[in-house]
């Protein structure tokens, strides 16, 4: 089949769409659903600007077919904020100046949020390793690391 009826839960909301087999997940998000927070930086699976969470796992949405996401849950940068409150990782990038142009930031934040969900107290090396598939052309990564550390501290229970 070249056309498919799919249902994808994006940031908690079910979306139905009829898609071509070849439609990429990133294009479903940006064009069909008009959610442009997910960026396209390279289109050759190198940069990670298109990172989203697929069932909680960070993947490059330019290298996943929309139809592969049928029946699954996607989290994009638009889904990080809850009830008008920034996610700790968003707060971290703001407080620690973790971005300059901001192009890599949605992907960076989603990868980092997934890291913190599995590892609440990552070492600097573990943070660097986790974001090694997300390229940033501006910051030199130093403030990105600080942003993730800020978020980790904020998310830990003892921080209150």
């Amino acid at each position, binding site marked *: *089949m*070249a056309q*498919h009826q799919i249902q994808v839960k994006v940031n908690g909301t079910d979306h139905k769409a009829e898609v*071509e*087999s*070849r439609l*990429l997940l990133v*294009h479903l998000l940006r064009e069909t659903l008009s959610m442009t927070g997910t960026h396209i930086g390279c*289109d*050759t*699976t*190198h940069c*990670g600007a298109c*990172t989203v969470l697929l069932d909680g*796992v*960070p*993947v*490059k949405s*330019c*290298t*996943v*077919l929309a*139809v*592969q996401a*049928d029946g699954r849950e996607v989290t994009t940068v638009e889904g990080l904020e809850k009830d008008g409150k920034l996610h700790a990782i968003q707060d971290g990038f703001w407080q620690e100046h973790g971005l300059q142009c901001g192009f890599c930031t949605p992907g960076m934040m989603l*990868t980092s949020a997934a890291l913190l969900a599995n590892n609440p107290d990552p070492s600097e090396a573990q943070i660097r*390793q*986790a974001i*090694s*598939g*997300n390229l940033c052309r501006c910051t030199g990564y130093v403030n990105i690391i600080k942003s993730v550390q800020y978020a980790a501290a904020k998310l830990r229970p003892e921080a209150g």
Partner: protein
Amino acid sequence: MIPATFDYHSPQTLEDALALLQGHPDDAKVLSGGQSLLPLLKLRLGAAGHLIDIGRIPGLEYVKEEGGVLKIGGRTRESALEHSDLIQTKYPLLAQTAAVIADPLVRNLATVGGNLAHGDPANDHPATMLALRAEVVATGPNGTRTIPIDQFFLGLFSTALAPDEILTEIRIPVPPARSGGSYVKLERKVGDFATAASAVQLTLGAGGEVASVGIGLTNAGPTPLRAADAEQYLTGKQPSADVIAEAARRASAIATPSADRRGAIEYKRQMARVLTGRALKQAIEWAKEH
């Protein structure tokens, strides 16, 4: 970049997937993690009329030991292998290989079966599987057959898998005591294919001599290479610094890399030598401690 049109199928069982492959004998491709196939289709370096997605078939992702054999399900993700306790504690060569394939995001989707079935000598698992003397289980319309890894890689992007076969399992003999392994890869940056890389798996005898050894080279020719001469030379010898150096030299002598932006032929051959020496030393260290 957008791939040319194709039909997509999402079979729920292996039988259905095999039937779909048989139904489209000339232009169907298995879609596993998609981390090699989708980039190729997007760049239009490849085309397929039908993609048979094996992603929804249950029972293809596992890592377990059974009857003296380590069994890895064909669709096991690289990230699952990388984080498996069994692999980390007992199979350093596999753990070290999985950890340097592509980047963490790609590894969340890329599969071990796909890494082998792609038939790319630049991929990292092929050399590792040569060193481990693995077997590949292929399931086709007439049941399953087992392919020794030495007969699996036929040429650039070409393997012994028939178009209507699915790689369902990888089998590796459980290593005896005093075994160790190591994968040493030179890459320009995370996510790059190897400039050169060497996979070593060995077992030490009671007297500290090399009782058996497997050595595989990545990106050193049109297929992954087994350094058979170096393996024979090492077997039965005490692994002194001189012996290791000579084995590494013999391994690099079989390399026929091509020149590209990662380096010249002679440079890559030298790197294959240096990396094999390091992999041997690390494998020996591990074997002594375990």
